[in-house]
Structures are given as structure tokens and as C-alpha cells.
């Protein structure tokens, strides 16, 4: 993708990930509200269902992409010091990559054990 289209790419990612996460959250909200008492067994059963397990993993990847685009905008707008900007963006990207990997690991173990 050319340099000029970089902004379009970010815009597109933000819309796609936002739409997915909106649908996912509404579904989880419905699950929680339609269950009288959410026990540990029910909680595990939800997230170890293959589709839900995959969707949750996808959710955290999309969250990382969405948060990256958003935080990048914020940092580029308000941080004018080049060094500080570079360090902050590096920290944010590492944090987002590691946290989504960690969540996917949990989800994977869940799908193996149950």
C-alpha cells in the first residue's frame, strides 16, 4: 500500500475491527444478561466452545489493532518530543502484542483442557 493510502488503511482497520468488536460485545452482553447466575462452569463452557473461543481470540487481536490505531493518533497529536514519541509508541505496540498473545494462549489452553 502506498504512503498516501496509509491513512485510508488505518481508517479501514478501525471500522472493520470496531464493527466486529461491537457485535461481539453485544453477544457477550446478551449471554450475561440472559443467564441467571454465571457460575465458573458456565463461564468456562462459554469460552471453550470452539466458535466462541476463536471469536474471543479474534476479538483480542482486533482490540490490539483498534487500540494501536487510536493510541497512535493520540500520541502523534499530543507528543511533540521525537524521542518520547518513539519510546511511547514502541511501548504501546509491545504491550498490545504481548497482551493479545497472552490472552490467546489462555484461550488455547482452555480449548485443549476442557
Amino acid at each position: 500500500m502506498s504512503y498516501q493510502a496509509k491513512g485510508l488503511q488505518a481508517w479501514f482497520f478501525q471500522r472493520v475491527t470496531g464493527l466486529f468488536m461491537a457485535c461481539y460485545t453485544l453477544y457477550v452482553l446478551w449471554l450475561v444478561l440472559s443467564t441467571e447466575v454465571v457460575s465458573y462452569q458456565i463461564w468456562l463452557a462459554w469460552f471453550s466452545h470452539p466458535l466462541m473461543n476463536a471469536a474471543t481470540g479474534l476479538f483480542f487481536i482486533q482490540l490490539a489493532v483498534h487500540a494501536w490505531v487510536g493510541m497512535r493518533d493520540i500520541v502523534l497529536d499530543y507528543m511533540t518530543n521525537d524521542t518520547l514519541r518513539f519510546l511511547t509508541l514502541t511501548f504501546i505496540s509491545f504491550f498490545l502484542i504481548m497482551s493479545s498473545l497472552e490472552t490467546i494462549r489462555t484461550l488455547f489452553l482452555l480449548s485443549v483442557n476442557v
Partner: protein
Amino acid sequence: MYLLNKQLKKRPKNLNLRSVKFPMSAIMSVGHRAAGLLLFLSLPYFIYLFQLSMANETEFMQIKAELQSPVIKLFFLIIIWAFAHHFFAGIRYFLLDVDIGIDKKWAQKTAALVMISGFIIFFIVSIFLFL
């Protein structure tokens, strides 16, 4: 690009916030950004909760018990408002992308609607959590 940055930095900054008008859409937009930042900052805590809730039943029950504390409830109330505002503002941007509510008058009205929807969620959840 670097030279351009250097030149831009030489320009004087004299932004007087009181001289800038803030229509409803601007307030909503700032709220959208602030809510997004808040959600990002709370992410470690939620990932920690998610991991712990999956670990074993004791941890799960302990989290459920901790969620009853007023401080945590207040925190959740704020996060739920932030999410709702971010959600509704996001839907507004989707509609703007397909040219719905794009003219000046309607853009202000939908911005007000986003703000009000966020507050309605805030009140419903606060009644649910604290009463």
C-alpha cells in the same frame, strides 16, 4: 519529512482554548477520544481479570466477590460509560461514512444523541449497581 517537522515546530503556538467554540460534536469527539484512552489504560486490569477468571473456581469466586466492593463498582460504572460512549460515537461515525446525518444541523443533533445515550446507560447501570 524531518525538515518539515522542524519547520512546523518553529511556528508559534497561541491556542487560547477560551477563544475556540466547542459545539456538541466537538465535546462528543473529545469524549470519544478520552473514553478510548481510558479503555486502553484499563486494558491490563481486564486482561488480568480474564486470565484469573479462567484459572480455577476459587479465583473465579474471589473475583465475583471483589466485584461487590463499591470502589470496583464505581470503576466499572465509569468504564461502562466510556465503552457506551465510544460505542455510540463509533456508530455515529459509521453513519457519517455512508453520508447519514452529514449536514451541519443533523451532525449536532446526532452528537447530542450520542452524549445522551451514554448518560442513559450510565444512569441505568448505576441504578443496577448501587440500588
